[in-house]
């Protein structure tokens, strides 16, 4: 992957912490996201990856820490704040509502209201317009789901993940954050999902991706943050690491001193 060392930093977090009572799920984490890169976050189960993403995007109230976009500090207290700042997130296991259709899921919280008096007064929805937008987007992304009127429940894990990723393409203004986009997917679905992740990059978004798949990190990402026990254990250019080394960093058999050459 090409990597622009000089790219400017679009998103910056400093000293991000999250305590659950006595449990420190996230401990003074710093994170930089460069413009146009795909940044991987790896780490064992319970390392705090999802917590980091949630604290970053206002899904949970952080205990402390600051977030900057384009070098300017901003308040992110709710998912809506993050969206307004141009961040679009696919949360782990919390991407779609099973009980509503694909169209309604895609536009949930950002429905298109009819451009007439009824729309203004009662918020009546413009389903034909939303359906049309989705069809155009799915065609562009080669997502072959035509039955967008059916409840999300009726679709396979791969299809559901594709829909969640398409949502970030449709609404993501600058930053896409994906929590395990290929979790529980088969080999083929997994590849399709990774193609979508790359298309996010092609669409000009900067991407943060949590994954347990080292191959995906090595093949598709520019930099990687390794987390261990709520802390950042290492930050590396993907070009400087291999799979064994990543595994060593994740499990802690390679410690910080070795990592410092990254």
């Amino acid at each position, binding site marked *: 992957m090409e990597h622009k060392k000089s790219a400017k930093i679009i998103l910056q977090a400093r000293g991000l912490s999250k305590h659950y009572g006595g449990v420190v799920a996230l401990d003074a984490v710093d994170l930089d996201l460069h413009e146009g890169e795909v940044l991987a976050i790896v780490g064992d189960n319970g390392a705090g990856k999802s917590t980091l993403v949630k604290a970053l995007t206002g*899904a949970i109230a952080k205990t402390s820490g600051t977030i900057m976009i384009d070098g300017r500090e901003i308040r992110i207290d709710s*998912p*809506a704040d993050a*969206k307004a700042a141009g961040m679009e*997130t696919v*949360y782990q296991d*919390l*991407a*779609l*509502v*099973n*009980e*509503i259709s694909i169209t*309604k899921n895609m536009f*949930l*919280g*950002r*429905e298109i*209201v009819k451009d007439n008096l009824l729309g203004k007064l*009662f*918020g*009546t*929805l413009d389903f034909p317009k939303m359906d049309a937008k989705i069809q155009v987007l799915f065609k562009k992304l*080669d*997502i*072959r*789901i*035509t*039955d*967008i*009127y*059916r409840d999300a429940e*009726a*679709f396979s894990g*791969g*299809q559901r993940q*594709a829909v969640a990723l398409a949502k970030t393409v449709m609404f993501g203004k600058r930053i896409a954050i994906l929590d395990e986009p290929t979790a529980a997917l088969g080999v*083929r*679905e997994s*590849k*399709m999902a*990774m*193609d979508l992740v*790359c*298309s996010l990059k*092609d669409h000009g978004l900067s991407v943060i991706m949590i994954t347990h798949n080292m191959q995906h990190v090595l093949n598709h990402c520019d930099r990687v943050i390794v987390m261990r026990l709520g802390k950042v254990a290492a930050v590396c250019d993907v070009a400087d690491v291999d799979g064994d080394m990543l595994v060593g960093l994740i499990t802690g058999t390679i410690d910080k001193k070795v990592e410092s050459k990254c």
Partner: protein
Amino acid sequence: MLNQKSSEFVAVPQAKTNGWEILRYQFMQIWQVLAALLIIYAVFFILSPAFRNVDTLLSIFSQGAILAVLACGTTVVLISGGLDLSVGSIFAVVGVVVGVLIKEYQLAYPLAILGALAAGTCLGALNGVIQVVTKVPAFIVTLGGLTAYKGLAELLGSGKDLSRFPEGFQMLGSGYLAPICIMVGAAVLTGLFLTKTRLGNHAFAIGGNEEVARLSGVKVARSRIYYYMIGGMFAATAAILEVSKLNFAQSSRGVSYELFAIAAVVIGGTSLFGGRGSVGKTIIGMMIMQTIIVGLAYLGVGTSFQRIAIGTIIILAVYWDVWRRQPR
């Protein structure tokens, strides 16, 4: 990377979107409850000769109409994953309020109706606000409301003769036609709200998965308050209809109405667990219940056994909902 396109995402059959297909789809959604209604009606039709006339049918509809209006609001609240046990008591308060406004304050009845609707909506809002602010579960908050609003109704209505209302007001709930028309109107409005508007669609999302809805930027707390307001407003509408029909108001009315409404919603097939349902099903569910009540009465079964029957049906309906949701 995008060029190596693959066909991993196997398409499901293309949906047809013309009017006929949509009608067919909607029929597929309700045919089971509709069939159940027809079968139950047929059973009583066969068993009881007195049951076999149009008047009986009309009285089933008109008696069911008032509770069905109440149940429209309950449908919205249950779809959003909420629960309102206090609507029976809101019903009592509003009945007294409309009576007091007309008889004591000599208000013109259209104004009294508006005032009563506002009172019901406010009590509903209170249910919602308390839940959202305190995070106390709906069951407890509205159980408290059930008792507290009942007390409020008694305070407002005690020792007052609230009867013999103006003729125009009496028209609303009397006879067959007016209540049935109002029920149909309430159902159509609720149906349009749930399927066409943003707030209505959010009820399904919040009831389906509140956390996903919140993360998607839906204003969950605010929406919830609105749903309880709608529940209160329909309880008020039903109360006004009943006061008009009986031509008197009393704080003792409305007892267990919340349970009848929940029963109708669940019998109709709206999930008690939120996220699924429709108001059409609720109307059919209410008619099923009324048919059973009226039918049993015609067969000479006393009210005690009627209650046992209804209680049993509620449990069976929820059991069916649970059973349907289990992966098989």
